[in-house]
């Protein structure tokens, strides 16, 4: 009798394991990566099946980078996060302790498989002759960018403008603040996220220039058509590094730690790098970049670490309540 019970329970357990179906993975990402991770997911699932014989089913969640991080802190079961800036993953580590504080050292290149930068999207023919950052502060030029307090992309744009002014004025901080203040005087509307701003610029026809992620600008170009908009790459801009990380505690709970790690490592593989470049991300691999000649114009790039001493510092000084951004709008104390 006892034996039969044990056999039955063993059988049930076995069949439960057997019937569990594909491994499920949730990748919580930011707004403009929809198309990128659709390609990555199917390529990785194929490779993982060939290698281990296990089906893997990857779900995607997209939204503003900060909002997504908050959802994970509040309990969204993300196995991996692929967000717009390191500060947001830092926040997950700091507020919810779901991954160690040194997460960024676990994968190569600061855990950033691809980089991007901030470029300008202008109307066809570039009627306002916008070529570089200096043109954005001219009177009569209307600039569209989201609110950096709520949008990761906008923080990159803001720091790109600041960095440009620093470089031009030999590191004069005061001049940089003046420049950025003048720039925001030309901003008629602050959307809360990058996609919102793209809609304002493209669909509603507001503004002369949109400050945008490079990949987002190319997506808009493809979608709207070359007869509507043009991408202008300034001579100097910021090296945007959107990082990736396994959310250790969630992955451990789901038993997906191994596949989650493999998923992120796949981004660094030759195949993953090529998919990134195809989706207008600047791949780290020169070989992958070479497959898309003339796609990524060369420009002088600076990093947040170089000019701002890292994200924590930049966040505190510029975007926190009472910070420089508030001061620009006269809202600080």
């Amino acid at each position, binding site marked *: 009798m006892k034996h039969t019970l044990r056999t039955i329970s063993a059988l049930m357990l076995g069949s439960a394991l057997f019937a569990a179906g594909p491994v499920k993975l949730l990748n919580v990402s930011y707004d403009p990566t929809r198309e990128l991770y659709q390609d990555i997911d199917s390529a990785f699932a194929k490779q993982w099946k060939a290698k281990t014989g296990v089906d893997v089913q990857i779900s995607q969640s997209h939204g*503003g980078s*900060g*909002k997504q991080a*908050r959802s994970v*802190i509040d309990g969204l079961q993300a196995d991996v996060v692929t967000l717009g800036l390191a500060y947001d993953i830092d*926040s997950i580590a700091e*507020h919810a302790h779901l991954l160690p504080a040194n997460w960024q050292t676990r994968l190569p290149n600061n855990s950033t498989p691809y980089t991007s930068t901030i470029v300008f999207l202008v109307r066809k023919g570039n009627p306002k002759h916008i070529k570089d950052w200096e043109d954005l502060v001219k009177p009569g030029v209307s600039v569209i960018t989201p*609110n950096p*307090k*709520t949008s990761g992309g906008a923080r990159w744009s803001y720091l790109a403008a600041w960095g440009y002014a620093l470089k031009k004025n030999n590191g004069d901080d005061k001049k940089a603040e003046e420049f950025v203040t003048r720039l925001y005087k030309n901003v*008629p*509307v*602050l*959307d*809360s996220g990058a996609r919102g701003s793209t809609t304002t610029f493209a*669909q*509603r*026809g*507001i503004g002369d220039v949109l400050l945008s992620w490079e990949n987002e600008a190319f997506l808009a170009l493809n979608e709207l058509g070359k007869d509507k908009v043009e991408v202008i790459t300034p001579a100097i801009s910021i090296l945007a590094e959107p990082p990736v990380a396994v959310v250790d505690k969630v992955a451990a709970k789901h038993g997906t730690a191994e596949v989650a790690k493999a998923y992120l490592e796949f981004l660094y593989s030759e195949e993953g790098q090529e998919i990134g470049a195809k989706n207008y991300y600047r791949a780290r691999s020169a070989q992958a970049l070479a497959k898309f000649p003339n796609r990524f114009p060369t420009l002088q790039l600076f990093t947040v670490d170089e000019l701002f001493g890292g994200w924590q510092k930049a966040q505190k000084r510029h*975007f*926190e*309540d*009472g910070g420089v951004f*508030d001061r620009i*709008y*006269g*809202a*600080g*104390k």
Partner: protein
Amino acid sequence: MLTPFKRPSVLPGFWPAFSYTALYLALIVLTPLSAIFLKAVTSSWEHLWKVISAPNVVASYRLSFGASLVAGLISVAVGFLVAWVLVRYEFPGKALADALVDLPFALPTAVAGIALTSLYTESGWVGRYLTPLGIKVAFTPLGVVVALTFIGLPFVVRSVQPVLADADRELEEAAASLGATRRQIFWRVILPIVRPALFTGFALALARALGEYGSVIFISGNMPMKTEITPLLIVTKLEQYDYAGATAIAAVMLIASFTLLLGVNALQRRTRRFMETE
């Protein structure tokens, strides 16, 4: 005239009904509200005060409450007119018009916001005719009022409509036969009948406008110190992981809204009592 605490009624028993009401209010309304206050007090008073008295937050109170009051008043005026037309006149497409009134209830507010913004920007269908006149709607406080009126109007129409339909037309005829002018009939006969309903509609529209988020953030432009509404600042605080700050602003808004609604309800009760004694 005081209403007794207990009174014969068709519902079975006073105590079951009363207990249910109390339980409902406690569970559905008071629990989440007290959670807000508890969350807010996890931070120091100093920090909370700094958050709720910051210049951009104070500017947002002004916009949120100001625009909501203006939009509520417009809704009352226009809503009364719409209800009047729907009740008193027969015209082709009346059923359609009647159904249209409810549309803002059903429409996701973000859709309304996007639609209104496209209409009122400088190149929009409506905006292009207003711009030469020097009137800017999108990305100004005026745009906020427009969006709030759009979502507030049905509350007034639906509050006033049944009262107006029930109103005895003979009263008006009697007044007219006694020599009352049209104006007198309106102010002395019709308005007193619908006044409580107008107050109800105003309170509902006001409450809805104060909490509105989706439709406003598209048309307001969200410029700090100028067109940021208070709910947007609450969301902004959340995005910055400042939960205590967000709930502090929410608490301020809650207390102010509650006081305001209490005032409107008191006014309404007074007019009703006035009606009954007359």
